[in-house]
């Protein structure tokens, strides 16, 4: 995968950390997954590789439809404010990514740039889930982590396992569907998909 594509993936990952509008974040993670799917299909050498790339594309389209539908059905009066302002969020995410790249020196992928991109996307995904309050954005953080891991699977030397890659895509869809059920119920109860409303369980 070229350096430009890797940089584009990382930059779009940072956008997920800072952008306020849910629909834009859905578009960004979908575009990321589609770029990965196109790259997988372009570099496919066996039927299994084509199947894995197809699974990634299918996952991207299904999740895009699911999330776009839920954004349309649960319109927020105003975007849910995160606990941490966007610039500080971006700073924390970048520091976390740098720490991860420093702590994990070698993953064994085909290029060091790809390794850094994988770790950065994982860090940005975790930061999104941890620092944002909107329920839908927390789940999109999980999808961002999975996009990073899909990039890793794509850049692994040697043969890939289509069974495991299909399974990962299927599991992510299952988790996303359940998350959407929760989001809709939370929205129905509190009028916003805001995790700040869910703070009663404390010891």
């Amino acid at each position, binding site marked *: 995968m070229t350096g430009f594509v890797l940089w584009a993936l990382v930059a779009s990952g940072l956008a997920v950390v800072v952008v306020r509008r849910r629909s834009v974040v859905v578009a960004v993670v979908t575009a990321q997954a589609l770029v990965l799917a196109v790259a997988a299909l372009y570099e496919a050498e066996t039927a299994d590789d084509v199947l894995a790339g197809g699974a990634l594309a299918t996952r991207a389209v299904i999740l895009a439809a699911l999330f776009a539908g839920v954004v349309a059905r649960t319109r927020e009066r105003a975007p849910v404010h995160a606990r941490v302002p966007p610039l500080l969020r971006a700073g924390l995410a970048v520091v976390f990514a740098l720490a991860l790249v420093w702590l994990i020196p070698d993953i064994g992928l085909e290029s060091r740039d790809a390794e850094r991109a994988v770790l950065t996307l994982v860090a940005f995904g*975790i930061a999104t889930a941890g620092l944002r309050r909107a329920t839908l954005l927390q789940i999109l953080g999980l999808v961002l982590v999975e996009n990073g891991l899909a990039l890793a699977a794509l850049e*692994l030397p040697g043969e890939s*396992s289509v069974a495991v890659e299909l*399974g990962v895509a299927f599991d992510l869809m299952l988790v996303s569907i359940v998350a959407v059920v*929760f989001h809709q*119920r939370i929205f129905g109860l509190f009028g916003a998909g805001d995790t700040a409303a869910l703070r009663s369980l404390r010891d």
Partner: protein
Amino acid sequence: MTSREWLALSVPLAPALAAIFVCVAPRRAVSPVGLASACVSALVAGALAAVALARADDPVTGDWLVVDAAAGLFVGVVGVVGLASAITSIAYLGSAETGLVRPERGPRLYWGAFLAFWAVLAAVPLAGNLGVAWLLIEATTAASALLVGFSGKARALEAGWKYLVLTSLGLGVALLGIVLLAPSVSGGLGGLSWSSLASIDGDSERLTVAFVLLLAGLAAKVGWAPVHNWLPDAHSEAPPPVSALLSGALLPAVLVVAWRSDRALAPAVGENLAASLLVAFGLVSLAFAIPFLWRALAWKRLLAYSSLEHMGVLALGLAFATPLAMAGVVVHVVGHALAKALGFYAATPLLSHAPSAASRPATGIGRTSPALGASLGISLGTLAGLPPSPLFTSEVLIIAGGFQAGRTWEAAAAAALLALGFLGLGHALLETIAGRTHRRAPGSPVGLRTVIALTAVATVALLALTAAAPWLPGSDIVDALLETS
């Protein structure tokens, strides 16, 4: 394929098919079909457990499927807790309301998710491949999160949401660890069978990082401290039969995967690191749990923190890996599952008898409802490790195993922490049974008869387990588990 492999495949297949039946069954038939399916699924699980344990010295170890003593033990536990949860679900559904979906769809959603959860849960100990095990564990999250939030109340939604996000993030970290392992095995991600991992060869620094990420990620699902935050909330807010399945079956099933990974990768990362990481998780979990066991907590929340303590004990037993410790692990897994499940089942009549017990400590139940008090007392007494509880025996065996393994300080620290935990739970036991009584709801508590029957069965099983414990060190089952170690 051998007959054992066919039987192993039918263990998850039976509840999976049942989940589909439940989805298409007429509305009135949903609960009877669910219960009947649970009986069949438990029968199949019991058959596999019996066969796997009887032939512990001759395991089936394929690239995708493994039928050994550990698989037999844990599939048996899933079958027993699953069946008892299905039986108690009838009373729960009779008294519960659901806000997650329209009320008329509640039983169908409940039974569908319950049986789907059972199917993937039963498959976890049978997975012969780390990649497949990861997929199954992630799938348990989706099915069980729906059940945790089943009531649709704000607290249940909070618990379900935390469970979904935190365990999925943890499993994402574990998957990163798996990806790091993949370049070192032939066949990429598909070559991650336990036997392939045992002979893995590669950059030791990368393998160490992969191992730590994998275990830390799985720890989030096992409920080991400090990544256990979802556990008290999910266990306390889920429907009681689901809490039983989460605590008695899900946590130990994921623990098996953590243990298999630990043992398979130990030659590559070093025996000391592999064991020390488990010891660290064990001791930290115990240390985190103790302060909460000393506090006056609502019944289900108290049981949830006790799960944290017991998962810590199991981590220690698996790390010590001597004949004594491994015998302790076997007794602890079974005893904990029975006692904890009984405690959660008793929550349905408890909340009907004393509704304030949902958010405040249950006190004086033995005075106002002796039968219910007996169920709560047997459960809590067993979990506290009060002799002749099998958990007393198992904890003694595990600590003795620690000394046998030469881990003197760790075993001594565990003994001290367990003694503190015993005092906390002992106090809670006295308060629950004979504390000050408050106003109680009139009439017979919901589902009390079922719980009394289950208490009788569980008491006999727990006493039998205590009696069998001294014979376990040196048995074929323990030897087979040690061979895996």
